[in-house]
């Protein structure tokens, strides 16, 4: 069984969590190439990645800085620190 060692709630089975992926900010003004990169490409190299996780039994969302090589949670990030303005998109004529 794989465990996620959460600094807030302790070691829990990974099956108690939903993984929401890397915290990413959509581009506000971008051409098709930038949008394609945002939509289709992900960082796959080992290293510290800022990710969203959801723990179902407590109903809590977490933002972790996780080392994807060692699986260590390096830091718990305040959700307010990853907040961003919703971009205003213009629909092409």
């Amino acid at each position, binding site marked *: *069984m794989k*465990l996620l060692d959460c600094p*807030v*709630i302790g070691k*829990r089975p990974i099956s*108690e969590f939903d993984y929401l992926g890397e915290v990413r900010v959509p581009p506000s003004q971008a051409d098709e190439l930038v949008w394609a990169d945002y939509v289709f490409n992900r960082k796959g190299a080992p290293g510290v990645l800022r990710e969203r996780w959801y723990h*179902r*039994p*407590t109903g809590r969302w977490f933002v972790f800085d996780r080392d994807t090589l060692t699986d260590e949670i390096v830091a718990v990030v305040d959700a307010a620190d990853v907040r961003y303005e919703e971009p205003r998109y213009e629909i092409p004529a």
Partner: protein
Amino acid sequence: MTALHLSNRDDLRGYLLTGPGSADALSAAGLPLPQAQLSAAASAEALVARTGSDEYMAFIGAGAQQPAHEWCFPRADSVLALKGEGWIALMAQVCQYDFRRMQPGDWLMTSVAGVNCWLYHEINGALLIGFDSGYDHYMNELFHTLVNELGGHTLNEGDAR
């Protein structure tokens, strides 16, 4: 240590309080108020857990006053009470948590047999297991089977006290 036994705590009514003023509403109703998040406090007739910065879950018996608050919603939890010798061995079959570490007064929210549950270890030694009542049949069948396999007995009425 008494023999392992299981009972349903149908006497508890559950409420979720959220938003500013929730702590004041609990205090006004004379209910216990846990300080730390993901901890619980109990009195003779009530159990209150703090599940967020201004969010609380309250389970109160017939003798306690219901909290009055604009954002107080009834919950539909079923609550099992497990008590007696071998309860840790039983829980080891359905949950990854190491219950040898759980002390009276401890609160835990985890997955039990694949169901999201809250657990509270009462001072009298009983383990309360709360979950959405939609899983009532499944959880009752499972726990009754396990208790019987481990030589305990089950009760349909009353509580674990």
